[in-house]
């Protein structure tokens, strides 16, 4: 019974954490397949989102009206943070990645430099100390506690916002011309180019959407934990694990992979409870091992088809 | 296999020959260097190789032709171990080499070239040539330190071979050029010369004259003939019909992944099915 209680409790945390990973993974997966390289700056893009939300929230200040324990101004700040992150990504794409002619490995290495620059600038402005949004921490919701679920309204807000964003993306991908072209390009960039899709436009939208979602994920990560300059970098590998598990280039695969990896990371303590001696300190290690195994046995990921894996 | 009439499928021919050879003559090496039997490879819904069966006899220059998408390159990749077949077998000198790693197949005497060789950045032509020789002691890390003399000795011998073969190919003036600076046609010559350094029993050439100017193409053809006379067996894919018709005998015609026919250049030229296949496949 104790194990079950623990499972419920951890699952609740896992869902929140997974929501954040989902937001990070979608962009990484899209950029991987459409821009054609593993973007090691994606984690730090999330950090940019977190800190720009912090800046805007500081300017706007708290408001009396609040939704799910969050002042309305926080949501405004969040939207502004998303916009700033998208702009930062676009500027980076235009002035750093675009002029390069060095292949995907060169771009990969360059993105590490970009990640360092993002992180360094943030650390210069905000110091390495941790910060929080100026919002009161909430107690877990009472009526959920009777089911042993410890969730705050903030957690609910994170999950709900992630769902809104993901559904929005889904509608975009399924029901708009841009979305269809994005999926086609992600599936097979060379075929898309050959069939006359204006890939440049798709690329730019990919950066906007990918970075925007990452920015939102970063802001929520700041709400879930706290803000530190390394927050995104620390999450990067977990997001890679999610993207690879889901299959690079597959948006829905990334969502599924992110959910699973998020759950694995958060549910690791259960292993000790059921007698497997792997402590929660190895939660991330477990995620990475899953990633390596997936790369070996099914590089196209769980959701990808053999062709879409890009192998 | 050249005598097999246009009617007889390649399968019949190979089974006949297999039957002839089973008894006796062990000391004499098999007359068939390469045996391809019912080779099959699917990519999703696309069947790239569909029960392809043919043989390459020792001492021949066997051509492999077919319209675009007929599966020629797939067959090459299946033979040389770069693809794993879904079904079928490949035998090299009677040994089953189906699905084993490319380097092992190469070690057994089958060397292949690529349609579009990538330039070896940072190497000169003679450096690039020196990769060809097999079983170099200097390729074993510890011997660099335990037996530097032997490494140097072999390297000197290989160097001499490189110079000799570059001269034979009349490209010795390129020896010290960066491998990235030479023309596509010269690169093809270098590739062929390098492949010869591996002392192959059978050499698979993937479009040796694609994108090569006619003068160089003739030179390549002369070299292939010369090497053939010296005893190398060839299997080659080529789009240039006059090139392959003048060089290869017999010729295996592929269509949609399987062997349509095989025969002498004359037989292929006059065969209606071949004409149909090429017309259907979008012309020669």
């Amino acid at each position, binding site marked *: 019974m104790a194990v079950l209680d623990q499972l419920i409790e951890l699952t609740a945390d896992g869902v929140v954490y997974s929501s954040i990973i989902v937001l990070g993974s979608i962009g990484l997966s899209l950029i991987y397949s459409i821009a054609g390289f*593993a973007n090691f700056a994606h984690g730090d893009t999330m950090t940019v989102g977190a800190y720009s939300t912090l*800046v805007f929230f500081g300017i706007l200040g708290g408001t009396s009206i609040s939704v799910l324990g969050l002042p309305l101004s926080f949501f405004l700040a969040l939207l502004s943070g998303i916009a700033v992150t998208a702009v930062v990504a676009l500027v980076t794409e235009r002035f750093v990645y675009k*002029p390069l002619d*060095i292949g*995907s*490995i*060169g771009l*990969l*290495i*360059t993105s*590490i*430099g970009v990640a360092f620059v993002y*992180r*360094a600038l943030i650390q*210069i402005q*905000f110091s*390495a100390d941790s910060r929080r949004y100026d919002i009161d921490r909430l107690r877990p919701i009472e009526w959920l506690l009777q089911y042993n679920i410890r969730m705050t309204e903030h957690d609910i807000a994170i999950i709900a916002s992630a769902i809104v964003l993901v559904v929005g993306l889904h509608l975009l991908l399924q029901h708009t011309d841009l979305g269809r072209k994005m999926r086609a390009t992600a599936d097979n960039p060379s075929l898309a180019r050959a069939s006359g899709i204006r890939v440049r436009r798709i690329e730019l939208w990919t950066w906007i959407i990918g970075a925007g979602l990452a920015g939102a994920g970063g802001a929520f990560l700041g709400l879930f934990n706290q803000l530190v300059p390394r927050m995104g970098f620390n999450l990067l*590998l977990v997001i890679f694990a999610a993207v690879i598990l889901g299959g690079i280039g597959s948006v829905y695969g990334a969502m599924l992979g992110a959910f699973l990896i998020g759950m694995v990371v958060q549910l690791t303590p259960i292993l000790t409870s059921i007698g497997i001696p792997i402590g929660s*300190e*190895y939660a*991330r*290690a477990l995620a*990475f*091992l899953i*990633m*390596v195994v997936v*790369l070996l046995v099914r*590089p196209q990921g769980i959701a990808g088809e053999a062709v879409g894996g890009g192998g | 296999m050249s005598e097999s009439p246009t009617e007889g499928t390649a399968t019949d021919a190979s089974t006949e020959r297999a039957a002839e050879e089973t008894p006796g003559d062990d000391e004499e090496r098999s007359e068939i260097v390469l045996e391809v039997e019912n080779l099959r490879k699917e990519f999703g819904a696309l069947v790239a190789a569909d029960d392809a069966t043919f043989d390459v006899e020792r001492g021949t220059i066997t051509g492999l032709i077919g319209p675009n998408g007929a599966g020629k390159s797939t067959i090459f990749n299946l033979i*040389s171990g*770069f693809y794993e077949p879904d079904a079928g077998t490949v035998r090299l000198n009677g040994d089953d080499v189906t699905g084993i790693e*490319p*380097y092992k197949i*190469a070690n057994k005497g089958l*060397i*292949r*070239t*690529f349609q579009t*060789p*990538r330039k*070896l950045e*940072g190497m000169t032509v*003679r*450096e690039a040539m020196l*990769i060809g020789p*097999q079983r170099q002691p*200097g*390729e074993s*890390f510890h011997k*660099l*330190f335990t037996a530097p003399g032997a*490494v*140097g000795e072999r*390297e*000197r011998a*290989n*160097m001499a071979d490189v110079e000799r073969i570059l001269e034979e190919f009349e490209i010795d003036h390129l020896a*010290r*050029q*960066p491998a990235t600076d030479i023309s596509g046609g010269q690169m093809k010559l270098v590739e062929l010369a*390098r492949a010869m350094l591996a002392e192959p029993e059978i050499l698979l050439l993937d479009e040796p004259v694609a994108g090569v100017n006619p003068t160089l193409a003739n030179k390549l053809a002369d070299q292939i003939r010369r090497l053939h006379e010296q005893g190398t067996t060839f299997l080659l894919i080529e789009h240039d019909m006059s090139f392959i018709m003048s060089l290869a005998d017999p010729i295996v015609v592929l269509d949609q992944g399987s062997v349509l026919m095989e025969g002498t250049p004359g037989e292929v030229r006059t065969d209606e099915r071949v004409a149909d296949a090429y017309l259907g496949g979008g012309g020669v």
Partner: protein
Amino acid sequence: MADVSTLTDPRGYWGDLTSEERGVAGFLAAAVLVLLALMLTGVLNPTYFLFLFGLGGMFGLMSLGLNAQWGYTGLINFSVAAFFGLGAYGAAIMTASNSPIAGDMNPIFGLVLGLILSAIVAIAIGIPTLRLRADYLAIASLGLAEVVRLIILNEGQWTAGSQGLRGIPAFFEGWPVLSTLPETLPQVNIEVIPGRVVTLGFPFWRQLLNVTLVLTFMAGAYLVLRRAHRSPWGRVLRTIRADEDLAKALGKNTYFFKMQSFVLGCLVMALAGVFFAHLQLFVNPGNLDPTTTFYVWVAVILGGAGSNRGALFGGFVVVAIREGPRFIEQLPPAFLTEFPPGFLRDLAFITDDVLFELPSIAISPGPLQLLLVGLLIVLIMRFRPEGMLPPQRELIWPDAVDENVRKRPDSGVREQRGGDGDE
């Protein structure tokens, strides 16, 4: 310090350099002169300088190791820090005073353990990852490096966990002569500027011994790697880097070659770790921070992939970047009032009271290093992706060519070529 053969035949060596190499050599000479001047005038503590030089050698070693993987074979190894850490921990476990399993042993055993550990882990990581596509290898190796770090952090019964291992002796402890040499050497006073006496005493000699150690490691690694690079073995690696399928088609077991290149590189990285343990005399899991990996990458890219000398050069430049900000911070305040450069102040475009508390000495060294390294990566990739000292010479086993092996291709990449300088 750029090349050992500089020492053996300076004139012939110089004559045979490309213009870039001369540029880099000139830059290094200038740097040495400046550093010497700083030391003689007492601005830079000579002992501290030797410490920095030791760090430079350490990064140079790691870069050599990575160059043997990325530069030779094209393997993207993002687990440099893990192998560095394994070397350091191997040394520490055998020699540290608080080591939970061994401890207080002769540093030679630490060296051996460090190398064995890293070889085993290299094979274990290599088996699954070396079959992967290049960019997957990057991600997977970074992930596995993190696993190594987590194990060292959490398996305190072997590694003393987060508190780290202390009381590591100097490398030459227990050796005849060398063990006590720093104490026996006399104290030397140098007075170039009247009133500013520079004293070279026990700490200086001790650091000098460390520098000797790292130079020995470097020379050893360099000679082994250079011979390997010029051999048929190295040629196969370079072929794999350019076109792995071609190498396979010519009968080379590329997986095995990649494994050898990977393990060899990891051993050199571990050697750097062993040196570090005896330089710092203390190791903790923080030494496995992945940032180190990327510093080493910067060194190799800056030096030029495939160039051993470039890797060494890059290693020292990276230390200058890492330690430069720290050094600048120690300069007198008058120097610093102008230091937080204008562009950083301009960045404070939303100069809100709470959000931006730019103190007068704005930047702690951490982020400035990070910024410089990040910018350096972006700039190199943009303007000089081949690095400062890209390899330009034919690499053929030396005694197999009758002519001078150093000759570049006839119509090579560089315009002028020096005389017949030999080895």
